C-alpha cells in the first residue's frame, strides 16, 4: 500500500515557496480533494455503485416488506421468475428480492461492525507497537503473529459447534470477523507509525511535555488520517467478503439472511445449480462482487487522490 501520509504535499521548494499566498491548507485541501475526487473515474463510479447499493439496503426491505424467510404456501412450490416477486422466488417460495435486500443490509452491517472492530483493534495494537518500540513492540508483534497464524476457520468451527444457535446470528459473525482480521491492519499502521515517530515535530511534542498517548492521538493519527481511512475501507470490504465466504461454506449465521447464505442455501438445499434456478444465486453473487469490488476500486481511487505523487496533473 503506498504511503499516503499527510494531506496535500507541496510541489518543489521553488514553486511551493512562491505559492504561499494561496488560501490556508485546510480549505485548499478540501477544495483540492473535491477537485481530484470528481476527476477520478474510479472514485466516481465506485461511489455511485456504493450509494446505489446502500440505498437498496436501506429502502429495499421497506419497499418489499415480505419476510425473507417466509415460505409461500406448501413446500416444493415451483420456483419461478414470475411478476409477483422482482427477483423471482426460491425453491422454497421465498421472495428472492426481499432476501437480497435484507442480505445486503446484513452485509453492510457485517462490514461496519466487523471492519470497524478490526480497525479499532488494529489501530490500538499498531500505534502502541509502532510508537513505543522495544519490548512492547516485540510483545505486540508476537500477539499479531499468533492471531495471523491461528486457523480462524477451525476456531470458528469449534465455537460454532458449542454456541447456542440463538446466539449465532449476524452480529456474532461480525464480531468474530472483527477479532480475527485485524493483524494486517496492525502491521500496516505500525509501519507507518515507525516512519512518523522519528520526525522532529514528535520530538517537539515530547519537549512540550506531551505524554505518549496524547502524541499518538493528537500528532500521529491526524497525520495518517487518509491512510487510516483507506485502511478502514479495505477492512470494511474484507469483512464483507470473509462473511460471504463463511456463509457460503456453511459456517454462516443460523438467524437472519445474508447474501452468502442465499448462495449457500441455493446450492446446498435448493439444488439451484441442477435445477437452473439462476435467479436465486446470481443476484447475491453479483451483489457481493459489486459491493466488495466497488470498495476496493474506491480505495485505489482515494489513494490516488490523497497521494499527490500518484496524480497525473
Amino acid at each position, binding site marked *: 500500500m503506498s504511503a499516503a501520509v499527510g494531506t496535500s504535499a507541496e*510541489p518543489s*521548494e*521553488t*514553486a511551493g*515557496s*512562491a*505559492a504561499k*499566498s*494561496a488560501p490556508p491548507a485546510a480549505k485548499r485541501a478540501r477544495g483540492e480533494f473535491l477537485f481530484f475526487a470528481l476527476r477520478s473515474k474510479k472514485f466516481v463510479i465506485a461511489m455511485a455503485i456504493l450509494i446505489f447499493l446502500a440505498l437498496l439496503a436501506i429502502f429495499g426491505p421497506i419497499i418489499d416488506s415480505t419476510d425473507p424467510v417466509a415460505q409461500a404456501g406448501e413446500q416444493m412450490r415451483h420456483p419461478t421468475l414470475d411478476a409477483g416477486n422482482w427477483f423471482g422466488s426460491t425453491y422454497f417460495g421465498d421472495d428472492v428480492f426481499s432476501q437480497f435486500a435484507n442480505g445486503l443490509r446484513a452485509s453492510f452491517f457485517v462490514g461496519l461492525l466487523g471492519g470497524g472492530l478490526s480497525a479499532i483493534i488494529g489501530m490500538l495494537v499498531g500505534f502502541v507497537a509502532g510508537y513505543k518500540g522495544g519490548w512492547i513492540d516485540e510483545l505486540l508483534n508476537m500477539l499479531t503473529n499468533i492471531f495471523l497464524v491461528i486457523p480462524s476457520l477451525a476456531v470458528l468451527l469449534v465455537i460454532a459447534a458449542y454456541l447456542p444457535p440463538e446466539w449465532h446470528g449476524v452480529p456474532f459473525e461480525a464480531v468474530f470477523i472483527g477479532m480475527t482480521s485485524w493483524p494486517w491492519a496492525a502491521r500496516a499502521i505500525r509501519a507507518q507509525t515507525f516512519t512518523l515517530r522519528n520526525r522532529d515535530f514528535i520530538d517537539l511534542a515530547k519537549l512540550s511535555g506531551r505524554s505518549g498517548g496524547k502524541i499518538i492521538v493528537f500528532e500521529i493519527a491526524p497525520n495518517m488520517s487518509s491512510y487510516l481511512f483507506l485502511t478502514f475501507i479495505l477492512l470494511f470490504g474484507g469483512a464483507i467478503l470473509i462473511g460471504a465466504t463463511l456463509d457460503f461454506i456453511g459456517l454462516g449465521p443460523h438467524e437472519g439472511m445474508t447474501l452468502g447464505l442465499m448462495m449457500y442455501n441455493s446450492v446446498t438445499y435448493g439444488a439451484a445449480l441442477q435445477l437452473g434456478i439462476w435467479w436465486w444465486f446470481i443476484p447475491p453473487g453479483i451483489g457481493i462482487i459489486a459491493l466488495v469490488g466497488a470498495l476496493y476500486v474506491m480505495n485505489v481511487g482515494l489513494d490516488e487522490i490523497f497521494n499527490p505523487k500518484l496524480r497525473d*496533473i
Partner: protein
Amino acid sequence: MSLQVSDLRVYYRTLAGDVQALDGATFSIEDKEIMGLAGESGCGKSTLGNSLIRLDGRMRYVGGTVTLDGTSVPIWDDDAMNAFRFRDVSVIPQYAMSAMNPTRKIGKMIQELLESRGENFASIKPELMRRIDLVGLKEDVLARYPIELSGGMKQRMVMVLSTLLNPSLLIADEITSALDVSTQRAVAETLVSFRDHGFVKSMMVITHDLSILYQTADTILVMYAGKLAEKAPTTTIIEHARHPYTQALISSLPEVGVRYTSKKLVGIPGSPPQLLDPPSGCRFRARCPLAFAKCVEEPPFVQIAPDHSVACWKVSGPNA
C-alpha cells in the same frame, strides 16, 4: 565554442496558476569557463540548471533560446533532447547518494548506461579507469555496490560518470551542499580538475554557497526572484559587487575570524516575493536600501564594464 542563453523563460504549472520561476535569463558561458550560479531558494537557479537538461512534468517552457557550440538546443522537446543529454549536456545531481541504482554493482550500471546510449563499454573502459584513478578512487570500485561507498566517494563516482563522454556543458547542481567540509573541498577541487584536464568544456556550478564559488568559479552569476541580478568575474563579485542584493548577501556571510562581538553582521530584512504574481518593476525593490522612484520600472540586465553586467537602475541608469 560556448553556451548562449537568450531570454529564457520557464514557468511552473500549479493549480493556482503559473509560478514565474525563471523570467528572462540572458547570458553566455565561454569555453573553459566555470560559471557559478548563485542565489537563495526560490531565485530560479535550479530551474535554470534543470531546464537546460530536462524539463520535468511541472515545468513549462515559455520562451527563449539556448545555443550550445553553435547548435540550437531544443529544451522544449524531451525526445529531441535525448540526443544532447550525456553527450553534449550533462548534469551532476545534488543527491548523488541516491543517483546510483542501489541494486546494481557500479560497473554493471555504467555498462548498461553506456550501452543504452549506443556506446561501446569495452572501448571506453580504459578512459573510465583512468578517470577513476584521477579522482582518487580505487579500481575495485566498479565491483562494489553504491552502499559500500561513503558520501564523498559516491559523489566523485557520479562526477566521473556524468563526464565520461566529455560533454560540452556540465551542470553541477548543489553538489557540495550535502557533504562534510573536508569532503566538500575534495569534491570542489575535483570539479575544477575536470575542466583543467579538458573533460568538460564549460561548467555551470549551481549553489547558494558563495564561498565555494570563490574557490572554484571564474565568473559568478547572481540571481534573485527569477531574474538575473549581476554577472562578473569572481573577484569582482566578491570584492566590488555593484548590485545592492549582491552587496548585502556578501556582507551577511560569516567568516572564520569574524566574531559577533567585534563585527555584528546584518541580514536582509523581508523575504523574496511570491513568483505566482510577481511585483512589477525591480523584484528586489521592497528590500533594497537604495530603492528610488525609477525602480518601479524593471531594470534591464546591461553591461557596465567588460564582463560585468548588472540589473539595477542605481548602477546603470541615468542617475548612476
